């Protein structure tokens, strides 16, 4: 198996290298084949691994590939940990990546950077695989930053656009703030366990549970809580949780395929994956879990609300992603790690589907992204319409779709959680269900139904996109519809994650969900007895009334809710705040240090000041050297007399 594990990331890397370095020589077609075959091989091999782990009961594989460095007795290794969690993630990553690769052929066909794009997305797949397959914190951090690098390159893919290169810098910087916390978290773990290896760290983590540290003198903090919160700051950056979410909406400047792959399905879920992977640590700190819970719930509701007022089709989906990441984070905080990963998986499929469908609309509309200028697209784009419907239903949690199972599991788990803050979280998630349905179907109705607000020249060329676009959509629509029904039983309640995720008995949220679960069918029926289904239905109906039946109502509400609307439109002023407080302050501080510290004090006063002092002093001394013989003779004689006088008198 070892060679298979090694081959999984490396085939993608090879594809990236071929498409990247030799793209010009081999041409467009060969480049995309290299990339697709590379990722395709990764996908097939990942399936083999999943089969091995899930059906053949393969033992957990935990081995080093090579020793990166040994210092101070600490082994820095590169290696793989293959268990239920990584096997599932590998399949999710490679399957979405493969469909996106195929889709890209259609989406990017006219782009001069075609080969470069393929190279980047294959490189991304490699990095993401290294991240999820890692058995240690070093490699995790490598993958973590490498996906950040590719994300940076891809957001700024169209590098002549000012907005794109602003967005990619912003994304990298905000992620670096998260990584800063993440690195500090790793430092805590290494300091207390002396290892970077997951299993060793977990085994020795009890030391941290009992230890305290005084970060602020006089205040004793539990080390494990500190470590978990710092790690979670990393997750907040990557998985875009408030207040580190600001980069994700702007990342939509990148081409749509990567919005689907990186900024919806895979990279942004790395934070969720990481926390689930660290469940043996997080379980030991209820404080940390509480923080996770509250941050997640806040993100879920705040970002969902913004989704209602967005008019750019991609941004609506982006805010929806933020909100759904909030749901996953809440699940983590409620110790329902498996539910979080389960939602991660279903979300990967239906959100990638929604993004790619949005991309399909964008292609058909000749790169128009404003949903106010669409409408009635159903009859022009039937395939896109139907797959979008599937994706939208899954997103709002329509009973039976994949999203229903995963979201309901999270809701029930949160309801049954006893972590402080779970009451607040549950309430936010419930409201969130209504909000999700509202923004999702607002978009859906405005794009596909109602009157056609399309301009004439676009309408003349409006037609369904080619098969290279629609086939990936259909491929993603299938799991979006059914994967929840098939897999919820075995994955969530069949003990699938037993070898990877640890949950303490006192955190019984998932156990409570398990009690209500008998079969998928039963789970659906059970759903009708709860509130969420009706909240979602209400959301759809409100969207229908406001945006199809009586659009004037939406306008009235908008005008009546002046401040509230502005607050949402300005995204709670996070961006403005960051620009003024962080960006401007940093530049201001830089100027002060430079102009006053370096130029005025050190150089002006001390360095050039000393030079001037020396110059002044020698100027004074120079007065003595007149060059007149009589002056010198005078001084000489005076000196001689004084000296003789002193000799005689002494």
């Amino acid at each position, binding site marked *: 198996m070892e060679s298979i594990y090694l081959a999984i990331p490396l085939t993608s890397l090879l594809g990236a290298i071929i498409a990247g370095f030799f793209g010009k020589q081999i041409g467009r077609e060969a480049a995309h084949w290299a990339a697709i075959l590379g990722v395709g091989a990764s996908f097939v091999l990942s399936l083999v691994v999943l089969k091995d782990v899930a059906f053949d009961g393969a033992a957990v594989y935990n081995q080093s590939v090579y020793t990166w460095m040994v210092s101070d007795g600490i082994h820095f290794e590169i290696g793989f940990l293959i268990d239920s969690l990584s096997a599932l993630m590998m399949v999710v990553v490679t399957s979405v990546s493969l469909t996106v690769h195929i889709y890209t052929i259609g989406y990017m066909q006219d782009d001069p950077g075609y080969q470069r794009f393929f190279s980047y997305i294959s490189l991304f797949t490699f990095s993401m695989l290294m991240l999820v397959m890692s058995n240690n914190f070093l490699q995790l951090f490598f993958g973590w930053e490498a996906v950040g690098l590719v994300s940076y390159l891809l957001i700024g893919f169209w590098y002549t656009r000012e907005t794109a290169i602003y967005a990619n810098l912003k994304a990298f*910087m905000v992620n670096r703030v998260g990584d800063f916390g993440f690195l500090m978290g790793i430092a805590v773990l290494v300091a207390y366990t002396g290892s970077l290896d997951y299993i060793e760290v977990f085994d020795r983590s009890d030391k941290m549970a009992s230890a305290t540290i005084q970060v602020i003198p006089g205040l004793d903090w539990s080390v494990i809580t500190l470590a978990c919160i710092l790690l979670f700051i990393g997750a907040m950056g990557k998985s875009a949780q408030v207040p580190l979410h600001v980069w994700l909406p702007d990342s939509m400047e990148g081409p749509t395929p990567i919005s689907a792959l990186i900024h919806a399905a895979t990279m942004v879920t790395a934070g969720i994956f990481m926390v689930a992977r660290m469940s043996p640590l997080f379980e030991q700190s209820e404080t940390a879990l509480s923080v996770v819970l509250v941050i997640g719930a806040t993100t879920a509701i705040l970002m969902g609300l913004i989704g209602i007022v967005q008019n750019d089709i991609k941004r609506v989906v982006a805010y929806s992603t933020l909100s759904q990441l909030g749901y996953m984070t809440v699940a983590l905080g409620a110790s329902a790690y498996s539910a979080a990963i389960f939602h991660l998986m279903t979300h990967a499929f239906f959100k990638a589907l929604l993004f790619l469908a949005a991309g399909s609309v964008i292609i058909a509309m000749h790169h128009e992204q404003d949903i106010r200028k669409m409408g009635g697209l159903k009859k022009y784009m039937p395939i896109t319409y139907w797959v979008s419907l599937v994706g939208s239903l899954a997103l709002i949690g329509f009973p039976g779709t994949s999203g229903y199972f995963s979201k309901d599991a999270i809701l029930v788990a949160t309801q049954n959680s006893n972590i402080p803050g779970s009451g607040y979280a549950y309430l936010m998630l419930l409201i969130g269900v209504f909000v999700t349905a509202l923004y999702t179907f607002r978009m859906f109705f405005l794009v596909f139904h109602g009157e056609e607000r399309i301009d004439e020249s676009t309408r003349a060329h409006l037609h369904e996109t080619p098969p290279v676009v629609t086939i990936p959509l259909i491929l993603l629509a299938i799991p979006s519809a059914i994967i929840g029904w098939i897999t919820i039983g075995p994955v969530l309640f069949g003990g699938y994650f037993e070898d990877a995720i640890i949950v303490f008995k006192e955190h019984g949220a998932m156990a409570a969900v398990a009690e209500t679960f008998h079969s998928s069918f039963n789970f659906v029926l059970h759903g009708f007895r709860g509130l969420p289904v009706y909240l979602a239905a209400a959301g759809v109906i409100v969207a229908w009334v406001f945006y199809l039946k009586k659009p004037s109502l939406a306008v009235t509400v908008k005008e009546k809710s002046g401040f509230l609307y502005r607050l949402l439109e300005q995204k709670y002023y996070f961006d403005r705040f960051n620009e003024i407080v962080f960006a401007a302050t940093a530049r201001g501080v*830089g100027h002060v240090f430079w102009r006053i510290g370096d130029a005025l004090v050190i*150089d002006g006063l001390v360095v050039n000041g000393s030079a001037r002092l020396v110059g002044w002093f020698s100027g004074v001394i120079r007065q003595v050297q007149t060059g007149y013989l009589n002056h010198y003779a005078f001084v000489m004689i005076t000196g001689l007399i004084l000296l003789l006088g002193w000799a005689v008198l002494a």
Partner: protein
Amino acid sequence: MFADGLLLSLVIWTPILGGALVLFAGDREPSGARKIALAVSIATFVLSIPLYTQFNTDTHLLQFVERNSWIPAFNIEYFIGIDGISMPLILLTSFTTIIVIISSWEVIQYRVSQYMAAFLFMEGFMIGTFSALDSILFFMFFEAMLVPMFLVIGIWGGANRIYATIKFFLYTFIGSVLMLVALIYMYSKTGSFSILDFHLLRLTMTEQILIFLAFLVAFAVKVPMWPVHTWLPDAHVEAPTGGSVILAAIMLKVGGYGFLRFSLPITPDASAELDWLIITMSLTAVVYIGFVALVQRDMKKLIAYSSIAHMGFVTLGFFIVFRIMDGDSSATGSALALEGGMVQMISHGFISAAMFLCVGVIYDRMHSREIADYGGVVNTMPVFAAFMVFFAMANAGLPGTSGFVGEFMVILASFRASFWIAFLAATILILGAAYTLWMIKRVIFGEIANDNVRALTDINNREILYLGILAVAILALGLWPYPLVEVMHPTIENLLNHISQSKL
């Protein structure tokens, strides 16, 4: 093939004699001067390879030792040898010199032979500095390397070069005068100038503190540490590209090396006593200089400031050990810190060289270092842009590049000393990315800013060659630092043992 010591001598003197040869060959045939210089630098590099391959990693004892009496009246010796600290720096020197000579191939048309000779002399002097085990010999090499650098900036430099050279010379010279006093004082007590004898010399705390401060001035200026850093941006801005590369990649390392060879082992008690001073200066370098770098308008100045910030990790790693050990030399984290500082030196050698060469590439075409004069370079120079973005990422400490390794080690280690020290050090993650990538955004990306950018031509094969070699080096060290760290272990462990024993 050679006696051990002879090989090291050859590595020192080949470039110096080669430099003399280039100088005498003169400028009648500039291409001849270039070719000889390249041949000499390659020969030196090849000669230096056995220093690595035949290096014994099982011992902390000095290797490739050669010891002859030189000035018997004062017991001054020609005493050279290397260990796990100096050997990597010597290889870095012989490697970088080749890069510099290739990079100057077409750019330098004025007094070619003198230019090439200056760099070969410098190479010899720098390798000599890293090899010398007699302190007077060290001091001679240490001072001698200033002369060719002074000339390089003064003759081939920019408009304001006279101010920069004088500042450079006075700063570094004043520092080393105090060091000489300290050396003579220790000679008066031991009757020898051997650094190894100094290591064993017992000194009172007052003596140690005075000697420590004398060394500190000398080495802090070289590194350079805040607040004696202001000569560096000026020197870099005025220096020709090759000068900047050697300055950043090697000369700054002499300061870091000095701390390990002199300050720590000779005055361990004073180092422990005054470690707060160095730690404060280092963290100030990271944070304060990070902010200053952010607002620079001149690319070379920005990279110069970035160098100061990154070198802050070197000195932090070297002096944080006392807080980690706290009297226990086997405490985990202390070797990590020292080795991290060392790795950071080597890595910074590659990355700063690459960054300055990148600026050189576009400066040669546009004759401007102002960020504002650029924009959208990627449109006309895509291959170059790929290199520059890669080096920028390395400068920002991306894992997988060498820039990450040392910083990672030092941050992990400093957490054992204090949460807040690690916290401030780790801000380089944010600040480093901010100043480097903001520059990249303004220079490389965007619409073509003006006609000058539009007229740019992409890099030629020669430029691809030297940037490519550096990229490979940065990647190799980032993906597998094992071989580099491995050679340091015994030396670092021995050093830690040594400094944990009081000399009072």
